């Protein structure tokens, strides 16, 4: 019986390794032809110059866009494959400071309003700060980017219990249709066509992968009046899953 469990677990870890291999192979080995494609495109652009038929220019612009998107997708895959390899440093993080930094690095306009609340005994904690930063940034970025209102309200609420920090990020944006909410964490999935919002659809995948990796949880619930709520349970003590 124990042997069966063991062999089962071995197979499971083999599968996980295969998943990582897959991501790694795709992101690394395909990078070579990707770079070639990217370079060749630049050469062609230089050789063509601007003195050509606008239709052709238009097409070429499209071509460049696709090359760019492809590159972003591959970079996203690369990032996914590196989640458990890089940026593993544990250091002390101050929550308000971390959230501020995230907001600061967002590319947003004046009509976005952030309301941040902390219910913490101790605002500092020792954790894999870069990862936490990444997760919070990705979710805030989504909240800003896919917002459909003139005035965009975004709420951040950080609280704690014995073992976890609970980070709630909500907005009054369009929300996610009920039938789609299971798909949003899948790689390259975008609610709208990629031509509407130029997005790779990898942000939530990477975020959930990180949270899962540190032993936490991330979940989506629809907001009270439309909008979205993402709740992150981030463990106080990081137990790294292999």
């Amino acid at each position, binding site marked *: *019986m*124990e042997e*069966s*469990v063991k062999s*089962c*677990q071995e*197979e*499971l870890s083999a*599968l*996980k390794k*295969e*998943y990582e*291999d*897959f*991501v790694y*192979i*795709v992101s690394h*080995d*395909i990078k070579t*032809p*990707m770079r*070639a*494609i990217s370079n*060749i*495109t630049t*050469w*062609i652009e230089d*050789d*063509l110059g601007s003195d*050509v*038929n606008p*239709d*052709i220019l238009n*097409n*070429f612009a*499209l*071509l460049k866009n*696709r*090359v760019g*998107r*492809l590159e972003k*997708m*591959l970079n996203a*895959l690369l990032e996914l494959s590196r989640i458990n390899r890089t940026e593993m440093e544990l250091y002390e993080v101050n929550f308000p400071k971390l959230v501020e930094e995230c907001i600061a690095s967002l590319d947003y306009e004046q009509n976005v309003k952030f309301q941040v609340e902390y219910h913490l005994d101790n605002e500092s904690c020792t954790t894999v700060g870069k990862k936490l930063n990444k997760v919070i940034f990705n979710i805030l970025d989504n909240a800003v980017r896919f917002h459909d209102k003139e005035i965009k309200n975004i709420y951040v609420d950080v609280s704690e219990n014995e073992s976890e920090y609970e980070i709630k990020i909500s907005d009054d944006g369009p929300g996610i249709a009920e039938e789609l909410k299971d798909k949003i964490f*899948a*790689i*390259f*999935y975008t609610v709208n066509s990629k031509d509407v919002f130029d997005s790779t*659809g990898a942000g939530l995948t990477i975020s959930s992968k990180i949270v899962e990796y540190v032993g936490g949880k991330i979940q989506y619930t629809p907001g009270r009046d439309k909008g979205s709520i993402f709740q992150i349970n981030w463990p106080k003590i990081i137990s790294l899953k292999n």
Partner: protein
Amino acid sequence: MKINPKPENEFDRLKALEGYSIMDTLPEKEYDAITQLASYICGTPIALVSLLDKDRQWFKSSVGLGATETPREISFCQYSIMGEEVYEVTNALENTLFADNPLVTGNPDIRFYAGAPLKDSDGFNLGSLCVIDTVPRALDVNQKNALQLLANQVVLLLQLRKNNEDLHTTQKEFQNFIDLSKDLVCIANVNGMFHKVNPAFTRVLGYSKAELEGTPFVNFVHPDDLAATYHEVEKLAKGELTISFENRYRCKNGTYILLSWNTSPDPVTGNLYCIARDMTLENDQKEALVKTSSELSAILNSTEFSVIATDLEGTIKEFNDGAEKMLGYTAADVVGKTSPAIIHVLDEVIKRAEELTFELGEEVEPGFDVFVVKARKLGIADSRQWTYVRKDGSTLPIQLSITAIKNSLDEITGYLGVAKDITKEKEAELNLINSNKLLDESQSIAKTGSWKFDLITKDLIWSKGHYRIFEIDELPPDTLYEAYRNMLKPQDLLLLDKEIEKSVATGQDFEFFNRIEFPDKRVKYILTLGKVIKNEAGEIIGAQGSIQDITEKTLVEQSLINSNKLLDESQSIAKIGSWKFDLATNDLVWSKAHYSIFELEELSSDKLFVAYRERIFPDDLKILDNLNLDKLNIDEDFKISYRIVLPDNSIKHILEIGKPFKNDKGQMIGLQGSIMDVTEKTLAEQKIAEKAKEINDIRSALDESSIVSISDKNGIFSFVNDNFCTISKYTKEELVGKDQRIISGSLSSDFTSTIYRTITNGNIWKGEIRNLAKDGTYYWEKTTIVPFLDEKGRSYQYIAISADITDQKRAEENLKVALLNLGKTNKELDQFAYIVSHDLKAPLRAINNLSEWIVEDMPDMPKEVSANFDLLRGRVLRMENLINGVLEYSRIGRTKIEKQDTDLKKMLYQIVDSIVPTEGFEIYIAENIPKIKIASILFQQLFSNLISNSVKYNDKPIGKIECFYESLPHFHQFTIKDNGPGIAEEYHKKVFKVFQTIEARDKKESTGIGLSIVQKIIEEAEGTIRIVSEKDEGASFIFTIPKEA
């Protein structure tokens, strides 16, 4: 329809007729004379003496008729015997009773009939004297009277015959009586000569009949007794009717025996009728009895058995020391005063009387006869267990053997009951019962039935008991035999027929043992015993007998034999012997039984002591030597045990009880006593001890290794062991006396009622149970619950033996979760791979399409730009191939592909067709490439990759690609060989790694994933692949896959 009349006393009439022994005798002239006279007087051509038995009329005498008998139902005489008067039919044709009678319509054409009944002195009409004519007529009054008178003459003849017959029988019986008499019977004539002597004379005296008859009987009287004998005989002359006297008589061999005479004279002839009895034996026997009884009491007084001797009526004659000790009565209390009834339990006697009545088939009154009937009737020692009641009213179990005491004439003069206290054995037996319930079954009562079988009609009759055993409803006799046979198995039928055949052929008793299987699979073992029934002619016409359901006996026997023989051994009757030792001479005297226990030939008394000591086990001699005679109290028994060694080196255990005896002066001059062979008892005790230890060992082993609990029939714990407490986290005090639901309460009621149903029906339940510990956690047990059954087969307690399987259960649950995760992950990974490759290909395709459009839209495109576009499209293509390759690679082994029969040769031809250019290549595909069952899509990929590699890297003007096949013992082996550049040794392993290509990708457009796919497919199929190649000498890819088992 005509009714055949029957006299009211028909049954007795037939018996009376039989008493005359007349039927089917030869003709006699006395009867013929009467029939002739009747024919003459009545003027009829035919006259008959007709006698009517059950089915026919038979003619003792006939005139004018050829036949000797006719069936009764067409006879005229059946009407004659109904009345007192002459019965007359004047014209049969006009009489409705006879008009269609075959004797009227055909030969002898009877028209006239007149018959007078033959009425005997007891009033039975045995038949008739009748006259018959072929023409109608009538008798006148005189003729009728004459006919009746003649009929009376016939009856007189019959009566005479019967009287003769009786006389003859009586004489014969008397003669037999005389001949067989043990006493000497003779007739002496007036002259004092033997006139007639019976065979007893020859037997007792040795003279032949001829030597005695005609010889004076005084010739043989002892000279000393002659005067007395004459004196007695003279009394007869004086008118005494009977005289009795004794004298000594000379036998032929010269010895004298003592005869006791009774003599009477015949008043008519003056002959003397004498009866003599040999008193010698009786005298000897009297003496012997006195001797024997004195010896007996001497021997038996020194044993620890109770020995009680009684006379024929049951009055106690002997009551030994052992009996006094055992029962608390003194000999003076009981000898001559009472019967053993006072020491027995009345209920047992009544019960035994019933058993014996059944067993012997005759009424046995619940009295003294109950004890001795077997000894008396069957001449065997009747040995069984009883309960004795002591003087103080307490009881003890005993084994009582009763034998008849006989004199030398083999006549019973009394009874001897030897009883042994079996309290210890009983306790041992009880212990056995407790540990091993087998004995219960051995005490069940045998079931029996009886049957009778008619060999001619095949009618079979069963008693109710017989039907009960066979568990069928009662059937009519003519169908029962068939039904019985249908219940037997074919092989048993063969045996049965053989046994019947044997009994019919030899007349021997019939014994048949078989099994019956009932529809519900129960089996009974049946023993059928039978005796043949013969008719007067000695022919076998049937059989009758009994059956016995010996299922339990058989089963018990089997299991007893299998499990232990202790009971038999412990119950066997101890053998005893007696001895006497003279202290002055060291002379030793033994009884015969003593010799047989020691297995010694009889020895003279001076040598016996030495032989005795030699027999004794060397180490045990000191027991004898330690017996300090000075300290022996003269009134006290000593008791020692020792072992003896027999010539075959076997050992016997002996219990010896002895007592000093004194001379007239009160000095101790010797020892006497008895020994008892207690080997069986000793061994049995040892075995019981071993068995008890074994049971204890098993129990402690069980305690050590398992979780054990015992609960009563209501589920209340009566015992829990330490393991039970450890796992349930309760203490013993918290569990014993509590309902077992304390731990099993969380189980579903369906589940518990299944268990309950199983064990209350006496079956063993096995299974896994999740129980609740004290701290609220659950633990799993693999449990066996065994019900203990009472005599009625009802469960009275349950023992549960369990093993802790909590860890195993947890592992099982973990496995379940792990398997679930595995399935999920597998699916996720598959989806992930698909999404990635699909989503990545979309922009690639867009880039490709856009660059084509741009090139089409710019016909005057500078050369270097269009070259760059070509380059761009080449890279796009490579990237797409890469993505496809990775996707394929990641899918191998994760998606189950059904195996199917595949013609590999056909597949290879198709692959070659689609991959290999028509020119510049020579292809060889071996003929022996087989059809096998494989995942054909994977093998299509496998061969495509290998062959396309060979094509891709070919560097010769004519590329050669060859496919071979070889069948190895457990593997299929395939080889793909080419004449390309070959692969250097150092790359043999490396080429199978993902994205490895030996040459730069720009030189040969290759993703480098092909061989990885090949290797992964082969590994999934549990095969191997290797490369045989040298640089510049071509390469062979050789791979094997296992054959289907």
